[in-house]
C-alpha cells in the first residue's frame, strides 16, 4: 500500500498515534455508539479520548470550516480520511444529530453569533442535539405542525408537543419547528428555533417500541421561553431551513443501508449457521436473496460515493438524498429480515446473555421503522417523482 499522497501519509500517521487500540474495532451493538453531550457516560476512557482527539482536530466534521473548529478538508481529503479510518477499523468517534442535521443548517442559515455559539461544541461532541419535528398530527404532513411560538416582545413563548424525538430524554438542546404565524398558509408560518432542554416547561415521556426499547420520546412544551437570538434564519421562513436539514438527515439515514453487520458479512454468517452442501449454501433460495442483497449493498455504496463526488464537499445532495434514504432503508430492512431467516428460532431469543438480550430480534424490529422515520418511503418516492422526474400533480 504505497501511496505518494502526502495527506494520506499525514492522516495515517496521525491515526496511528491517536486512535486508541480499543477503538479500532467496529461497533458490536448500539450501546457502543458514542453520542457525546453534557451527561454522556463514556463506556471507557478510550472512547472519551478518541472523541476528544478527533474533536480537537476537527475531524468529527471533516469538511466544516476551520474558523469554527472544523477540519477544513475538501471532498478528496475527506474520502482519504474515511478510507484510512476504515483501513484500521477505526469506529466513528461521534454519532451526532449536531453533525448530521442542525450543524449543516446552521452553517448555511445561522447568524454569525449562532455559528460561534453552537458549531464548536457540536464538533467537540459536547452538546447532544435533539430534533423537534414530527407531531401527533403532523407526520408525513410535517408542515401541518401546530406547536406554537408566540411573540412576547423580547422572547417567544412555546406551547405544544413533539413526537418521535430520538433520545429526547438525553438531549441537551433542541432544534424545533414551531408555528409563528397561525394565519399564514401552512408552509409560510413556520420557524426553526433552538433552546436548551433544561429550560423550565420542557418535559419528555418515553415511547416504547415493538422492539421493547424506547429510543424515542414525546416532548411536551408548557410556556417554554425561547430567546429571540435563537431563531434560525428569517421568521416564518423555517420551512426552507427544515427541508435543507432533512436532506442531510436523509443522506445520513441512507448510509445506514451500508451498515456492516455485527458478526461479519451476512453471507459468512449464513455459511456458519446453515452450512454448505456441494460447495454452495445448503439453502439455495436463501442464498440467492443473500447474494442479491450483497450486490445491491455494493451498488448503494458506489452510488453514495458517486453522488457525494458529484456534489461539493459538505453541500446538500438535494432531492437525491430522498433516493438514497429510500434505497438505503429498504436495503437495511431486507438485511435484517434475512438475518432473522438465517437465525431461525435462535433469532427469536429475547432475553439473556447468550444472544445479547435478543439483539437480533430487537434490531430487526427496530429496523421496521427505517422506512417511516425521516420521511416515509412513500414520501421519498413522491419527492423523487416530482423534484427529479418532474411528474405532475
Amino acid at each position: 500500500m504505497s501511496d505518494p499522497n502526502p495527506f494520506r501519509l499525514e492522516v495515517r500517521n496521525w491515526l496511528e498515534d491517536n486512535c486508541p487500540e480499543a477503538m479500532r474495532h467496529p461497533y458490536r451493538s448500539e450501546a457502543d455508539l458514542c453520542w457525546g453531550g453534557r451527561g454522556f457516560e463514556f463506556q471507557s476512557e478510550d472512547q472519551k479520548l478518541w472523541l476528544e482527539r478527533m474533536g480537537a482536530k476537527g475531524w468529527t466534521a471533516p469538511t466544516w470550516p476551520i474558523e469554527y473548529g472544523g477540519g477544513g478538508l475538501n471532498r478528496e481529503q475527506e474520502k482519504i480520511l474515511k478510507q484510512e479510518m476504515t483501513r484500521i477499523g477505526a469506529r466513528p468517534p461521534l454519532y451526532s444529530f449536531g453533525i448530521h442535521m442542525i450543524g449543516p443548517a446552521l452553517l448555511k442559515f445561522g447568524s454569525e453569533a449562532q455559528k460561534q455559539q453552537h458549531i464548536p461544541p457540536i464538533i467537540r461532541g459536547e452538546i447532544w442535539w435533539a430534533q423537534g419535528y414530527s407531531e401527533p398530527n403532523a407526520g408525513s404532513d410535517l408542515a401541518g405542525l401546530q406547536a406554537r411560538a408566540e411573540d412576547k416582545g423580547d422572547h417567544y413563548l412555546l406551547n405544544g408537543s413533539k413526537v418521535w424525538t430520538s433520545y429526547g430524554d438525553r438531549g441537551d438542546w433542541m432544534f424545533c419547528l414551531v408555528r409563528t404565524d397561525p394565519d399564514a398558509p401552512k408552509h409560510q408560518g413556520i420557524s426553526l428555533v433552538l433552546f436548551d432542554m433544561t429550560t423550565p416547561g420542557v418535559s419528555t415521556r418515553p415511547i416504547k417500541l415493538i422492539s421493547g426499547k424506547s429510543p424515542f420520546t414525546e416532548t411536551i412544551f408548557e410556556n417554554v421561553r425561547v430567546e429571540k437570538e435563537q431563531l434560525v434564519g428569517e421568521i416564518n421562513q423555517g420551512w426552507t431551513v427544515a427541508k435543507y436539514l432533512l436532506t442531510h438527515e436523509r443522506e445520513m439515514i441512507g448510509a445506514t443501508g451500508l451498515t456492516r453487520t455485527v458478526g461479519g458479512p451476512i453471507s459468512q454468517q449464513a455459511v456458519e449457521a446453515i452450512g454448505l452442501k456441494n460447495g454452495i449454501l445448503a439453502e439455495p433460495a436463501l442464498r440467492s436473496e443473500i447474494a442479491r442483497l450483497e450486490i445491491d449493498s455494493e451498488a448503494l455504496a458506489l452510488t453514495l460515493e458517486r453522488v457525494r463526488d458529484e456534489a461539493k464537499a459538505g453541500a446538500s445532495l438535494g432531492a437525491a438524498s430522498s433516493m438514497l434514504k429510500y434505497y438505503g432503508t429498504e436495503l437495511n430492512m431486507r438485511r435484517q429480515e434475512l438475518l432473522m431467516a438465517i437465525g431461525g428460532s435462535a433469532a427469536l431469543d429475547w432475553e439473556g446473555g447468550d444472544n445479547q438480550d435478543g439483539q437480533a430480534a430487537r434490531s430487526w424490529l427496530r429496523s421496521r421503522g427505517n422506512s417511516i422515520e425521516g420521511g416515509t418511503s412513500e414520501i421519498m418516492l413522491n419527492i423523487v417523482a416530482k423534484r427529479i422526474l418532474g411528474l405532475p400533480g
Partner: protein
Amino acid sequence: MLRDSARDFLNESAPIPHLRSLRDEDNQDRFSRELYAGMSEMGWPAILVPEEYGGLDYGYCGLGIILEECGRTLTPSPLLGTALVGVTALRKAGSEQQKTELLPKAASGELLFALACDETSRHQPDHVETSCIAEHNGFRLNGRKVAVHDGHIADQLIVSAITDHGISLFLVPPKAQGVKIERYPVLDIAAAANISFIDVELPANSLLGEIDAGEAVLTEVLDAARVGISAELLGLAQEAFERTVEYIKERKQFGVPVGSFQGLQHRAASLFADIELCKSLVIRSLQSLDGISPGNAELYSATTARLCKTAHLAANEAIQMHGGIGMTDEFDIGFFLKRCQILESLYGDHHYHVDRYARLRNY
C-alpha cells in the same frame, strides 16, 4: 465530448427507425455495413486497439460510453463482438504475429470477430465438448457451438475447445473446410448462428494463447464482454425510462396526465433509484477493466446481475406505462424489451450472475 459526438452520430445515422428498416428490408446481416464504416471513421472499433497496431488505446471507459449510447438507440453493430470481445481476446492472448495481422484490420473496421463459446442454450462456457486434437502440423477441430453472437457475419471465429489438459482457444476462419454456419433470426431484430466443425484442419498458428490455458483467458474476455453488455443495457434502460416518463407526462386519461397518479409515480421513482445504482456499477466496472479502480470478477458479476434485472424491469415498465400502444409493432418501445432479452441471454443473465457472484464469494 466522446459521449456527445457518439450521441449526435447515432441520432443522425442510426436512430430506432434504422433498426426497423433493417428488419423490414430483411437485411441478412441485421446490421448496416455502411453504418459500420461510419463508426470506423469515428474510430470506434479502434478504441481498445493499442497504438502500435493502429488503434487509439482509449480504454474500456471510452468504449463503454459508445456502447451505452448504442444502447439508447438500439443500434445494431459488430462493436460488442469485434471492438470489445475480439480485440480483448487478441490483446490478452494474441501472439505478435496474430496481433500484427488482425488488430489493424479490426481497428479499421475491415475484420469482424465472433466468439463461439457456448454449446448449450443457457450460457455455460465451462461446458465444452468441442475438441481439438494436435496433429503433425496443427490441429483437428470437431464439435458444435450454438447461439454465436455475430456468428453469421464474422471473418474470424474465436472457438473454445477441449485439448489434452484443459480448454484452449483457437482462431478459426469461417470459410475453412468443415465449418458449417447456420444463420437464424433472433426475435425479429437480430440474427445469430449455430456453427458446426467437422474435421476442420487448423494450422499450428491458429492457437490463441497457451495450449490448455484458455479457460482463464476466456473468463477475462467474457467478463469484459459482460461489462460492455452492462453498459449497453444501461443506455437501453435509461432511454426506455426517459421515453416513458415523457409519455406519462403527456398522456391524459380521466382528464389528467397519467403521470400524476401516485401508482405510476412511485414505480417510476423506484426505477429511477435502480437505474442510478446501475450507473455506479457500470462506471466502476469500466474503470476497473482499465485498471484505474479496484475490481474483480465479483464486481463484474454484480454489475451484470443488476443491469440485467433493472434493464428488463425498465423495458417491461415502459410497455406497461405506455399501455396498449406499447404492445403495437408500430410503436418503438417494444424494441427495447426484445434487445434487452437478447443481451441478457448472451453471456449470463441475472440468475447466472447472482449464482456466480455467490460462488466467487464462497457460498
